[in-house]
């Protein structure tokens, strides 16, 4: 076993331990206090009943319902905290991988769905769909939400790519991303101004970004989208590694550059759209996490960095959500409030370091 394998194993173990600790902390803290020992007892019982109910719905279905609605602890744990925790983990990971794919696409570590305005595009189209097409948010189907977010992501990505052909300079591209994101924000605000009052309340809380509305439904849906995307991204690890040398070299190694680029953009957009649909736009995770992961591993080998970015993203969002939920309890912060505080300095650091290297 060489040094790099040891390092990768150590980082994986560390992240797994952090995730486990995050699980306990997250479940443990809040208005209802559940002792640590009881968490595992409840979890075990819940899982067993759930599995049995799947196998023999007639015999165990009622027992499961009784368990879930029986004690306050069980209810809080199983229908509020656990889905929220899992949603934060899955979406955090998805966002990190989405950022990583965009960075591979632009061959620049300062690309991400938020800074390029892609999240804002998703938000814009979701708002438009919510207000004008459906009239009533409560009837909005999660599938429609994700589709709208995906369409919005692709729309903005398309616009950014059009400019990217003309502007080779990444700083200019970032400025364009920020401008596009203002434009999308303007359209969103315009919609909000003319929306019904009860829609506005919902829209505002959603667009602030939060995992608070998590349900098992949302967890299942987002996992069904994000995990296959993660697997596909991992399968692209080989060409992603070669693409780091630039288009010319990638082409000479037998990569269909155009098809490969389309795959990257579709996967990245789908991942970030899923995040935006379920938790609203979340800032900086997409840039900061891949960078942190690469620095931890001291490598940029995609086969390792892709899965571990997912893990780091999951850990990060679980803790950020914990902070958002508990720092000023009972008032909850928006998730971006927390992620910006730690993410923005990382991005500034990266830009300064890069500039230093270029000179």
């Amino acid at each position: 076993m060489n040094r790099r394998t040891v390092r990768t194993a150590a980082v994986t173990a560390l992240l797994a331990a952090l995730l486990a600790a995050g699980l306990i902390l997250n479940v443990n803290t809040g208005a209802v206090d559940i002792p640590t020992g009881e968490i595992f007892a409840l979890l075990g019982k819940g899982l067993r009943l759930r599995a049995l109910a799947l196998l023999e719905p007639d015999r165990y279905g009622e027992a499961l319902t009784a368990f879930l609605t029986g004690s306050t602890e069980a209810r809080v744990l199983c229908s509020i905290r656990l889905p929220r925790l899992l949603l934060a983990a899955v979406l955090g990971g998805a966002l990190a991988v989405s950022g990583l794919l965009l960075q591979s696409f632009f061959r620049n570590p300062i690309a991400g769905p938020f800074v390029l305005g892609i999240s804002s595009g998703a938000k814009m189209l979701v708002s438009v769909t919510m207000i004008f097409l459906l009239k009533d948010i409560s009837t909005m189907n999660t599938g429609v939400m994700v589709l709208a977010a995906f369409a919005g992501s692709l729309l903005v990505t398309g616009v950014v790519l059009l400019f990217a052909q003309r502007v080779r300079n990444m700083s200019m591209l970032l400025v364009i991303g920020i401008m596009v994101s203002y434009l999308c924000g303007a359209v969103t605000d315009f919609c909000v101004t003319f929306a019904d009052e009860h829609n506005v309340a919902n829209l505002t809380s959603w667009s602030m970004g939060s995992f608070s509305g998590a349900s098992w439904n949302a967890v299942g849906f987002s996992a069904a989208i994000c995990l296959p995307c993660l697997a596909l991204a991992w399968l692209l690890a080989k060409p992603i590694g070669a693409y780091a040398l630039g288009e010319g070299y990638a082409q000479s190694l037998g990569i269909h550059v155009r098809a490969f680029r389309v795959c990257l953009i579709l996967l990245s957009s789908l991942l970030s759209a899923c995040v935006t649909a379920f938790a609203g736009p979340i800032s900086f995770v997409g840039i900061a996490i891949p960078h942190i992961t690469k620095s931890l591993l001291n490598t940029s080998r995609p086969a390792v960095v892709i899965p571990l970015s997912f893990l780091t993203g999951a850990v990060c969002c679980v803790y950020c959500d914990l902070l958002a939920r508990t720092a000023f309890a009972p008032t909850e912060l928006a998730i971006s409030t927390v992620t910006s505080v730690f993410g923005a300095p990382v991005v500034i650091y990266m830009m300064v370091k890069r500039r230093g290297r270029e000179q």
Partner: protein
Amino acid sequence: MSYFKTENLSVGYRGNILIHGINITLQKGQILTLIGPNGAGKSTILKSITRQLRTISGSVYVQWRDVHRWSAKELASHLAVVLTDRVDPELMTCRELVALGRYPHTNAVGRLTAEDRRKVDEALNLVGGEDLAEQEFSTLSDGQKQRMLLARAICQDTEIIVLDEPTAYLDIRYKVELLDVLRRLAREKGTTILLSLHEIDLAYKVSDQLVCVKGDTISRYGPPEEVLARDAAQRLYDMERGSYDPLFGSVELPRPEGEPKVFVIGGAGYGVPVYRRLQREQVPFAAGILFENDVDTPVANALAAEVFAAPAFEPVSDDAFAAARNAMLCIGAVLDAGCPVGTFNRCNGRLLEAAREAGVPVFTDAAQLAIRNVQ
């Protein structure tokens, strides 16, 4: 039988023909170099051969097979490239970068086998880059980077390697080493190599075939000794001032203009530093008496206002001596470059005597003369 061949190839951008009628044939294991002025289209031709650009018309064949009909994978296993693109991968070690050359040979997840690792080591060894293998690529100097990119192309293990200006950032030592590696590849592994170079002298030395790209077509094509005869290089680059000697690769700045102010007596290489010094000081001079096979002669021809040359392997004739003597006395100043006088260049000794007899000042150092020139 030709191994590599282009047939009536026309290349350019977006349907606009830049260069047409490119017909080149190469044997296996030969090196072909494209030379020509900046912006002449050397890169365009190479990119069209490697399929980075679509050709406008005509074909490229390798062993009678049309390169543009190959699948992307076939292309990758037959042809490797070293491009001018800026490469800046984050946190990638040199070994990882070089190992990317194995890309067409590895499985779907890019796992390196023992054989792959051996080829990577071999390629690193060939460019002398073993010591840098574990360093991060982006921390390397331009020259080291270029060697790693060459190693990457080598371990792709292809029959053809195409390099676009591979010596652009290298200092003279690495230029020579890189071209030596290319020669070894061609000779030992039978790799066919196409490249573009700015240095005509190096192109002359490394290539089996030279192609001059100028205007909208190939102006010359063939073995270097034919292509670079006499002033071909000067015409290729439209050099109006200064001169270039392809045989030695020596470049001279434009000669000082005006009537000669000093007569330089040189020979056997003593003259060259003096001529160049006078060129820098912009002092027009005459040079003599030089045999046509003297090393001083080509430089004197490039820099002197007037050269008194005598045929090689013959004693200097009295007429030639008289002409040089008259010119020297007429100029009225002599610079002795310090060449020893022997049996065959006795005439130069006689010139010095004649100068002293006539009271013409004889300098031994170009610096004294430069001061006089300023005064």
